[in-house]
Structure formats: structure tokens, C-alpha cells
């Protein structure tokens, strides 16, 4: 049985040195919507020494297929800017 412990629905991440603006742009092109930037939390970005993050949010209507699409999309981002 799953519990709420150690689970969250909004995940902010970095992808190597690729800037979140670029991550979001390429994902958008593939029909995947994420948010990018400071998320009104610049002090947190400064604290972790990163320029910004990409944030994916999930809700009760998100499907495993959409998560797979996100992962594939991120591979594509890496190849494009690699």
C-alpha cells in the first residue's frame, strides 16, 4: 500500500548544464508543458547555486504514459543540447 511519506507532486530539477529555459522550450515543442525559472523562489536557487530549475507537476489526472513522455522528452533535450 502506498503512503504519503516521501512523496510529492511538484518536482523541480536540473538537467546537467542545460538551462531550464532551453529545457522548457524543447519539451514544449514535443507537447510537454513544464514551468521554468525561479518559481518565485530565487533565494532557494541561490542557496543551491543553480541559475533556475525546471518544474514538472503531477495531479490525479496525470497518467503513466505522460510521465514516460516527459522522460523521453528529457532524453531528446539532452541530445539536442549535448
Amino acid at each position, binding site marked *: 500500500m502506498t503512503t504519503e511519506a516521501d512523496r510529492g507532486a511538484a518536482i523541480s530539477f536540473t538537467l546537467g548544464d542545460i538551462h531550464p529555459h532551453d529545457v522548457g522550450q524543447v519539451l514544449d515543442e514535443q507537447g510537454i508543458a513544464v514551468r521554468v*525559472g525561479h518559481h518565485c523562489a530565487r533565494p532557494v536557487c541561490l542557496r543551491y547555486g543553480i541559475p533556475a530549475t525546471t518544474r514538472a507537476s503531477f495531479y490525479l489526472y496525470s497518467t503513466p504514459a505522460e510521465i514516460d513522455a516527459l522522460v523521453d522528452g528529457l532524453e531528446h533535450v539532452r541530445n539536442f543540447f549535448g
Partner: protein
Amino acid sequence: MKLDSMYQEVILDHYKNPHGRGLRDGDAEVHHVNPTCGDEITLRVKYDGTRIEDVSYEGQGCSISQASASVLNELLVGKNLTDAQKIQETFLELMQSKGKIEPDDAMEEVLEDAVAFAGVSKYPARVKCALLSWMAWKDATAQALDGADAERKTA
């Protein structure tokens, strides 16, 4: 692929091999941040009268913002202020065109590599990325040249 219209080879080249990157001696320094977040630049200008002797910069940000700074350095260093201002105004016009301007030969001659950013104008969220270094250059220039004027007046 639509992405090619924005991420042209020229832009990715400038991103991977930025021209003139690094902070060197200057008459004025500014620090600009992109309010839609995540791009920042520290930029210095050095003038020899009204001739741009150097534009040096450091920063972190998306490929568009960093490539734009590289193109700015390549285009403006060595130019006279009047010519540089014309280039900046033309670039601004292109960036604010919402994809409606198809650069003609005249515009290409003025902008050179900067014409590659034409596609960016179709993406409102990225326009400020492209303009960040240019706005910083404008600001630094105003400080460098106004400061010099002030010195002349008080001397």
C-alpha cells in the same frame, strides 16, 4: 522541425563558443537579470572616445541569452557608437516584431549573425533573453559616457 527556426546553428555555435567572454578592463560595469528569471549578465564597456574598444562580460543563462551576448561582442567591438546604436535599434525592432519581420538584405547587412535570432521574436517568453545583453550594453554605455561627461564638466 519548428525548433530549427529559433535554435539556428549560428546561435548554438555562439552558445558553445562565446566570443569575447570574460571580464576585462572597462569604463563602466552593470549587472542585469532577466525578470522572467534565470538569465543574468555582468557587462563592462570600454570606450576610446566614441569608439567601442571592448565589451566584456560574464554571466549564466539560457542558450539564447548567452549566444546573444557573444554576437553583441562580435558585432559591436571596434564600431563607432553611432553605428553600434543603429545595430542595437535594428535588433530591437526585429526582436519586437512578433515574427512578422522577414529580414531583408539590408537588415542582414546591419545585423550579420544577429539576424539568426529572427525566429526568437515568435516566442514572447524568449525575447527578453535575446535582449538582455543589449540592454545591459545600453545601460553600461550610458554610464561610461555620461560619467565621462560629468568628469569633463567638473574638471
